[in-house]
C-alpha cells in the first residue's frame, strides 16, 4: 500500500494539505463511519459522497485502489462473516462490508497522498509510544526488502522447476514462504545488532 512513488510536483488537491490534518480527517472519517447503523442505510450515502469528493481531490488512480482493496478484501469478508452468527444476520453483514470498505479506501487515500515518514513525524509529535513507532518504521522499511527477497527466491525455484503440475507450484510457494520466514528472522537478528551498534537500548 505504501510503496508507491509519492511524487506530485504540482502539489494539487489533497497533496497540499499537511500530514497532520489529513491523519485527523481520516481518523474522524473512520470513527464516524464505524458508528453508522448496523444495516445498509441511506445515511451511508453521506460518507460515500465525502469519500468521492476527496477521491477526486487526491487524484488516486482507481486501479491503484482496487489492487490494494483486493488484498484487504478477504480480511474484510472474514470479519463480516463473523457477523453472520448474530440473530439479524444479513443486514449486519452488509453494513460491516460497507463500513469496512469505506474505511479502507479512506486509509488508502491517506497512504497515497502522504509520504510515510511525514505520518511517522505526526505520530511522534502526538507522543505515540516509541516501540510502536519503531515497529511501524521498520515495517515500512523492510516490506520492499522482503518482497525483493521473495521474488528472488521464487525465480531461483522457478528456474529449477520443470514440472507444470499445480501441486509442485503450490509446494514451491509454501517452500518459499517458509524460507522467507526463516530469512526474515535472521535479518531481524542482524538489524537488531546494527541498531545496538548505534546505541539502541
Amino acid at each position, binding site marked *: 500500500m505504501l510503496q508507491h512513488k509519492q511524487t506530485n510536483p504540482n502539489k494539487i488537491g489533497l497533496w497540499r494539505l499537511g500530514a497532520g490534518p489529513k491523519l485527523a480527517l481520516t481518523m474522524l472519517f473512520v470513527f464516524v463511519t464505524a458508528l453508522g447503523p448496523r444495516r445498509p442505510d441511506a445515511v451511508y450515502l453521506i460518507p460515500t459522497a465525502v469519500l468521492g469528493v476527496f477521491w477526486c481531490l487526491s487524484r488516486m488512480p482507481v486501479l491503484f485502489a482496487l489492487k490494494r482493496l483486493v488484498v484487504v478484501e478477504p480480511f474484510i469478508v472474514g470479519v463480516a462473516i463473523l457477523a453472520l452468527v448474530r440473530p439479524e444476520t444479513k443486514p449486519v453483514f452488509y453494513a460491516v462490508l460497507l463500513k469496512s470498505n469505506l474505511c479502507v479506501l479512506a486509509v488508502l487515500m491517506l497512504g497515497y497522498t502522504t509520504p510515510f515518514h511525514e505520518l511517522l513525524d505526526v505520530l511522534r509529535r502526538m507522543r505515540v509510544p516509541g516501540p510502536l513507532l519503531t515497529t511501524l518504521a521498520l515495517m515500512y522499511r*523492510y516490506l520492499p526488502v522482503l518482497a525483493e527477497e521473495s521474488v528472488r527466491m521464487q525465480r531461483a525455484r522457478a528456474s529449477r522447476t520443470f514440472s507444470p503440475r499445480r501441486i509442485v507450484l503450490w509446494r514451491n510457494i509454501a517452500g518459499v514462504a517458509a524460507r522467507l520466514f526463516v530469512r526474515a528472522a535472521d535479518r531481524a537478528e*542482524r538489524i537488531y545488532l*546494527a541498531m545496538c551498534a548505534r546505541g539502541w537500548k
Partner: protein
Amino acid sequence: MNPAIEVRHLSYSYPGGRRALDDVSFAVAPDECVGVLGPNGAGKSTLLLHLNGLLPEHMPDQPHVWVTGEPLTRKTVDRIRQKVGLLFQDPDDQLIAATVFDDVAFGPRQLGIEGAELEKLVVSCLDMVGLGGFEQRQPHRLSQGEKRRVCLAGVLACKPAVLVLDEPTGGLDPRGRREFKQLLQSLPGTKLIATHDLELVVDLCTRVLVLDQGRLIRDGPALDVLADEPFMLAHGLEKPHALLHRHPHGPNA
C-alpha cells in the same frame, strides 16, 4: 599512548559449539589502518562484532577487548559502542529508517542530540560521504553504493574513535568500489577493515591480520603478507593483481 584497539586472548564459540575465535590477540595503534583477511568462516565478522560489544551475548567478568585503553565490560559497553563505529556487511541490515535523514540521525538521537544541532550534524555527515541533498530520499530507492555511503554517514554521525568495516566494498561495481575506497582513504582515524577485496587492502592498509579457522595465523606489514603467495594460497586467499603487475622498480617494489 594507549592502542586504539587491543584484543587479548579472545575466544568465542557459537551456541551449538562451533569455535569461531580461538585465543586471538593483537593491538591496533591510533590512526593505523589494518586489514583483516581470511577465507569465509574464518571468524572475521565475529571478531568485529566483539569489538563493538555485540558479542558475546553475556559479557564475561574479565575483559578481552580494550578500546582507547578502556576495557569492554557490561558497564562500559554503551560508551564503547559510541567509540567503535561498525559498518555492517549488508547495508539493508543497517538502514532502518524511512528517510536518509532519519537513518543518519538514528545514532545521534540515542546520544540525546536533537534540533538544529542534529540537523547540522546529519547534513555535515552526508556531505562528508558525498550525499549532500539526499536527506529526504528513501533508503530502499538508493543504489547499493549510495546505501553503503548512507550507512557510513550514520556511523560517522556517532563520532566514533575507531571505524570497523565489514566487507565495505562487497556487492559494489568497479566504479562504486573505487569511489568508496577513495572515501575511506579521505577519512582520518583508526580503521579496521575485514574484506576479501585485496586491492582495497593494498591501497589502504599498512598492516594485515590473517585469520583462519578462528585463529590469528599472521600479523604483519600488508605488502609482505600479501606478496607471500604460498602462504596466501594455503589459507584460501591469493596474491592481489596489484602486486602481480607491480613494476619491479616502482614504489614498494
